[in-house]
């Protein structure tokens, strides 16, 4: 289906939480310039997958490759290698201001100008953050925090951007905007995006390809437009015909 | 059995470990010597040492353990506080204890019940005696009429010395300004600044060596040069802290370092441990305690606590390394123990005279 070399490739990834096996040998490929969505029910292991790629939870087995090279195990090395994550539940640095949070996102970047221009871009994407520049992140509204988390992940200028439920807690209008922006970012900058979403319909509309995960295993894979019309997917994740 | 066990309580850890560790070594020198000379009535002596961390609660547990192991006589327990905490236990178990430095009269004499604590003895001079001698010497011999005194409000012995110093000094017509501090303090500049302002001609220090060293040093720093007179908390280590600022200072002490008997003990120490002793008073005092005990064992002929206690009580004219011991049965103090005044000059202690109050 795609003859480009895969940029991010996950091979046979396993993660355990004590006795619970949260990922059972997951395979996934993201090709350069693609948006790939992962959909699945609560507890299917989506966040675990993201965290395992980022080295935030230990991998019990399997490997992750970026551009054919084995990805290191420690989060900070993974970030430098070119992957960044907007985590589930935002995880903004509450006692830091919005600007400081964004600066943290740009930690691997050395050049100050670059950081500055990147921040401009984020502010253009989320004007609300610009208004709240010097406010402590902990006092932002839920949606504002979500914007900050996405903005922070963009600041690292990643080759692959991981988004864990970016629409969580966002107003419909903002979701539409963000998804539009993501399409733009993807199209203009060619940024590769791996997204986990509960709003499966939107995710499928946004992405080129998608995976369906169920209790720690990939059960389906395909072009998003195909999955959108797949009977099973429709029933299980899209909430009937709407 | 063929050995007699003697218990020993010392601060092997904690702030008092400087003295505690030396006391154990001093006692060991004596035990070796006694055993080499055939022991006591043909029995060898064995020293059992437990740490008391310098704290009452530990000394009690350690003493209970010694008693439990069947030990009938104990040396050590440095402070009056410890000894007073131990007294009821010793009495119940009928095990006598000879303390090196419990100098508070109340350690061996129960003031409330107005009777001697039957199982507690000491070899050092008491605080009243130190205080009186120091006041007397300062006023009469050194001719200083106004003195400043820094005392540790939390220390049994410092307070005791202070009380009797003030009593004697004012009785003689002198004037004393006294300032308190608390054990553990390291900065005395506030007190010294005030003391200096009174125009006192002497700084009197019934304290431990660390405090005295710091006081001497800080007084010099403030540009104050009074006559210095310290108590028996002296240690050579002070010199390291205070350096030459402590030159010409006077010290009231239990023993004369230049005494040849004392020197003999220290020589044995050096031979056994291959190093010079650090705290001569501690070494010699513990050494003498062992001799006092072994003498009592010899005379008692029986090795139960009560007999040993009776023998200790009736000790007479026993020549120890640093003095001639006759135990006062009414107070369990050495009878008429002379105090020595020494002077410190460029890193050395010199004998000045033995002072008695008339």
């Amino acid at each position, binding site marked *: 289906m795609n003859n480009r070399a895969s940029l991010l490739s996950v091979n046979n990834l396993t993660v355990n*939480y004590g006795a*619970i096996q949260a990922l059972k040998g997951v395979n996934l490929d993201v090709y350069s310039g693609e948006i790939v969505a992962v*959909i699945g*029910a*609560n*507890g*299917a292991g989506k*966040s675990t997958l993201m965290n395992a790629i980022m080295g935030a939870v230990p991998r019990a087995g399997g490997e992750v490759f970026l551009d054919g090279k084995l990805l290191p195990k420690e989060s900070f090395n993974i970030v430098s290698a070119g992957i960044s994550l907007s985590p*589930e*539940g935002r995880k903004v640095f509450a006692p830091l201001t919005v600007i400081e949070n964004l600066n943290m996102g740009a930690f691997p970047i050395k050049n100050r100008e670059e950081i500055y221009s990147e921040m401009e871009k984020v502010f253009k994407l989320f004007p*609300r953050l610009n208004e709240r520049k010097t*406010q402590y992140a902990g*006092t*932002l*509204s*839920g*949606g*504002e925090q*979500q*914007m900050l988390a996405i903005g922070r992940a963009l600041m690292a200028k990643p080759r692959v951007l991981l988004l864990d*439920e970016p629409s*969580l*807690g*966002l*107003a*419909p*209008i*903002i*979701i*539409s*905007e963000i998804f539009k922006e993501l399409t733009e970012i993807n199209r203009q900058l060619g940024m590769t995006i791996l997204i986990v979403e*509960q*709003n*499966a*319909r939107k995710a499928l509309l946004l992405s080129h390809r998608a995976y369906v995960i169920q209790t720690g295993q990939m059960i389906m894979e395909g072009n998003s437009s195909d999955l959108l019309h797949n009977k099973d997917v429709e*029933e*299980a*994740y*899209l*909430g*009937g015909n*709407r | 059995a063929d050995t007699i066990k003697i218990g020993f309580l010392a601060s092997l850890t904690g702030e008092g470990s400087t003295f505690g560790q030396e006391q154990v070594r001093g006692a060991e020198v004596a035990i070796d010597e006694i055993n080499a000379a055939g022991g006591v009535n043909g029995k060898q002596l064995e020293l059992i040492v437990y740490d008391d961390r310098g704290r009452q609660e530990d000394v009690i547990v350690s003493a209970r353990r010694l008693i439990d192991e069947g030990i009938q006589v104990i040396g050590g327990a440095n402070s009056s506080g410890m000894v007073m905490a131990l007294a009821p236990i010793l009495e119940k178990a009928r095990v006598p204890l000879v303390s090196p430095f419990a100098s508070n009269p109340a350690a061996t004499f129960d003031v409330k019940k107005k009777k001697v604590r039957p199982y507690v003895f000491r070899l050092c001079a008491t605080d009243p005696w130190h205080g009186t001698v120091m006041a007397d010497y300062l006023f009469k011999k050194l001719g200083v009429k106004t003195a400043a005194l820094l005392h540790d409000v939390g220390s049994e012995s410092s307070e005791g010395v202070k009380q009797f110093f003030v009593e004697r000094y004012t009785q003689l017509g002198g004037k004393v300004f006294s300032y308190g501090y608390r054990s553990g303090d390291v900065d005395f500049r506030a007190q010294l600044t005030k003391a200096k302002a009174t125009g006192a001609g002497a700084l009197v220090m019934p304290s431990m060596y660390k405090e005295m060293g710091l006081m001497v040093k800080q007084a010099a720093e403030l540009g104050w040069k009074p006559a210095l007179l310290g108590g028996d908390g002296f240690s050579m280590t002070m010199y390291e802290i205070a350096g030459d600022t402590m030159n010409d200072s006077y010290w009231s002490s239990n023993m004369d370092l230049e005494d040849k008997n004392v020197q003999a003990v220290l020589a044995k120490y050096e031979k056994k441990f291959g190093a010079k002793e650090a705290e001569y008073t501690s070494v010699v005092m513990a050494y003498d305690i062992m001799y006092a005990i072994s003498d009592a064992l010899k005379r008692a002929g029986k090795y139960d606590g009560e007999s040993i206690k009776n023998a200790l009580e009736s000790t007479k004219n026993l020549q120890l390394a640093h003095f001639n011991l006759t135990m006062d049965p009414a107070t369990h103090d050495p009878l008429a123990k002379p105090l020595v005044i020494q002077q410190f000059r460029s890193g050395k202690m010199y004998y000045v005279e033995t002072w008695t109050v008339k």
Partner: protein
Amino acid sequence: MDKEILRLEKVNKSFGGVHAVKDISMTIAKGELTAIIGPNGAGKTTIFNLISGVYKVSSGDIFFNSKSLLRFRPDQIVGMGISRTFQNLRLFNDASVLENVMTAMQQQQKYSFFEAVSHLGRWKNKEKATKERSMELLDRVGLADRYMQEAGTLPYGLQRRLEMARAIALEPELLLLDEPAAGMNAEEIEQLNQLILKIHSDFNLTILLIEHHMELVMKICPHIICVNFGAKIAEGTPNEIQNNKDVLVAYLGEDD
């Protein structure tokens, strides 16, 4: 008109320079199911925080069953019959699912300190009741099979359900739900709709909820209030709201 249960009168709240809630007035009738919608940062959560006593109002007044809430501490307000869930989950993560619910349930099953240290008197019955009723409740929200799991290790969606269960366990008259559907997929939201409707009728509750998922709001809430920049911009039935120009511009977007 039904009997009113909650009334906000010209409520204001500022944080330094941020005027988060502006002159909001609203009335909620007993038994109603009402939604508050509005863009991010519009002040919705702040309204909840004011009602539940987390923040003190800057001006205005809030009445619950005709009694002003301003003088009361959060725990007293809970005692009066208002409970809530949190937008950012606030579960006892290390405690088990069951224990989370029991902690709330026990407010209805009190016994004295003496009974507690002696296990005499009411202790046994009350403890039993607390546990049984908590299990029942867990069963209702679909968490019964996970009752021993540590709450913090539940997947996000289930944590939200547990929060609801905990709030219901307080047996409130008025239940405040802050984005109950966040992190759920369409299918799960459908289930949640059923759940909310069911508890609404089973427990005789008045529910006020904040949501961004219109498939929930429009379907189950006959009464919707829309706020923007801290002020109320619209109020009405789903139909009215969906066709309100201001709401469309500020919040819903021109549809996709």
